[in-house]
């Protein structure tokens, strides 16, 4: 049948592809319109931060300035006021570094060892603890907020750097443990068995066999933790104490302190500066970032 009909219709062979079909046109227009929606705030942030305040009040929010200036960036970094001090957002930047680096190291150290135990050295109830952790990751933070205030207060570290590091370790643990547990469970068993036969113990196998093979998963987990901790606001406000407020909190204070009128250009410059670290990580390590959120979401 098919042969006869094609014969009747004349030209044979594959139908030449049209350069553009309506379907393609529709797909690309939806994708481009959405892309513009997602890009628009970034564009507005950047062009606003390059304007001076007069241009902002007179001009259109979408139109870039003809005379870009980095004054607002300098002001945001060095001298913007957070209510009490006028030292700019650089204070918050260094505080965020002080919080993020140790929190990331501690939480990954604890989580990788726990994940290794769960995957390779299960013990009675080890899965129960893991289930508690996973369920705990869905419980609203506010439920654990007060108990953690009490714990840190009684340990004598409330309102200090160690408190916020402890809290980030606690709340980062579920997802990180899941990540490492699933990764170690996916490694070939023979490897573990061979190491056991050779007489290696718990720590030897972990440090000499597994860790060197696990650079990708450590990368994923560092990216997840650094962006997560950098972007945190609530724990920084409650546990870090005013002298250690992270960058997100300082940004909020800068925008909300309306001394001498609102300086939208400085606000936007401070906003970009706060978003710059996670954004850089995202653009440099796109593949690992996606892997991290997918691994965290699709549970084993």
């Amino acid at each position, binding site marked *: 049948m098919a042969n006869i009909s094609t014969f009747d219709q004349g030209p044979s062979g594959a139908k030449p592809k049209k350069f553009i079909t309506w379907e393609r046109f529709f*797909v*690309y227009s*939806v994708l481009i319109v959405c892309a513009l929606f*997602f890009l628009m*705030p*970034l564009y507005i*942030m950047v062009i606003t931060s390059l304007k001076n305040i007069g241009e902002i009040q007179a001009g259109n*929010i*979408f139109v870039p300035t003809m005379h870009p200036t980095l004054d607002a960036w300098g002001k945001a970094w060095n001298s913007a006021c957070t209510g009490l001090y006028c030292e700019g957002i650089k204070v918050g930047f260094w505080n965020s570094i002080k919080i993020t680096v140790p929190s990331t190291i501690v939480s990954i150290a604890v989580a990788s060892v*726990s994940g290794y*135990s769960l995957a390779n050295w*299960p*013990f*009675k*109830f*080890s*899965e129960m*603890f893991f289930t508690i952790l996973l369920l*705990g990751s869905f*419980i*609203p*933070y*506010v*439920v*654990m*907020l*007060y*108990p953690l*205030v*009490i*714990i840190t*207060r*009684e340990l*004598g570290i409330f309102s200090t750097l160690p408190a916020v590091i402890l809290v980030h*370790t606690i709340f980062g643990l579920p997802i990180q*443990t899941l990540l490492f547990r699933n990764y170690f*469970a*996916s490694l070939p068993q023979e490897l*573990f068995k061979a190491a056991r036969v050779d007489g290696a*113990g*718990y*720590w030897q196998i972990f440090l000499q066999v597994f860790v060197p093979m696990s650079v990708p998963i450590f990368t994923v987990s560092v990216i997840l933790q650094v962006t997560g901790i950098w*972007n*945190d*606001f*609530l724990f920084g406000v409650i546990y870090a104490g005013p002298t250690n407020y992270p960058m*997100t909190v300082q*940004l*909020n204070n800068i925008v*909300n302190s309306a001394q001498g009128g609102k300086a*939208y250009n400085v606000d*936007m410059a401070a906003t970009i500066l706060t978003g710059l670290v*996670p*954004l850089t990580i995202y*653009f440099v390590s796109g593949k690992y970032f996606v892997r991290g*959120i*997918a691994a965290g979401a*699709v*549970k*084993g």
Partner: protein
Amino acid sequence: MDTSSSIGRDSSIPYNRNRPSALIALACIAAAEVVLWLLWANSSLTSLVSSKVAVALMFLLVPVFLFFVYDAIWGIKARSSKAASYPMMLIALGVFVLGTIWTVLFSFTNIKILPLFTPGQWIDGYVGFANYKRLFNTDRWMNCPGLTHIGRAGWKLSCTGALPNMVTYAVLSIVISVSLGFLLAVMIDQKIKAEGVFRTIYLYPFALSFVVTGHVWAWIMSPEYGLQHSIRLLGWTSFTFDWIANRDMVMYAIVIAGIWQGTGFVMALMLAGLRGIDDDIWKAARVDGIPAWRTYIQIVLPMMKPVLVTTFVIVTSGAVRIYDLVVATTDGGPGISSDVPTRYIYQNFSANLGQSLSASTVLLVGMAVVLIPWIRIEFGKKSQG
């Protein structure tokens, strides 16, 4: 994940065999904690032991001690493994389990300052459901004047307050971000050019914090110099977009910001789900002459149920936690019209602790309503396979 590949287990034993006993053990630990704590209530120990020791006992030592008891009874190997897992076990029991129990228990008391774990304080302060009654009588938490008749359109249930705001945000952000995320994933799945570029653009807001998101959108939506001002400059002088300053619309403004931040994440999950669908399904559908859009809706979507459910749970738990986004976008304003539970709870921190704790418990119960069906799906599936 193939859990049966774990080493150290006899692979002939089904993996789930000890789950029921694990749950019983959890219940026992929780019960033992409560009993110990109540016993301790009227003992003279309360005054003797300094507060630090008391907290250490309640939070750290008791669960560890109980764990050792179980350890002895059940006889376990892998000592280094257990020793190395103590931080994890302490956090699971001491923070997640005990912390939750503590919050729920003290929501039934009239405490004003943060107490310790002294049961005496709990017994002295016990007031039953009084906090909950007051909470739901507080307009700032929830105010439902009831059904209002709005002409021919029918009836409208209008609620204001922190809890209804959160529900509005949760429902809208789930519906919009899941449908938009799925649509984008399907579009990206059409073997388009520059796929990576589009994916990168959709996902980058997810790397930014809610504080950054909130401030950018507050600036864009600001009626003074933002979008409204700019469109009016172009000549459309009656154009109005003042949601952020409008009591009735402010939550929708926050939803816009939330969707911008979170849709890329949903898209990434959906795309992973789509890519996981077997090619043979597509071939079979094509052979049968089913149009692509119908294949997506009637075949692929039902097959992606696990991904959809997981996405739903994650997006919901994020929406229940909403705080930074509101603080940055409107700080609860205008007035308190965009207040949300976490903000309410945080602001009652010092003045009205009982209210805070009962509000937290309400959120916990709400989350449990979402989580329990999910757990049944997840764990039911595993025990079958």
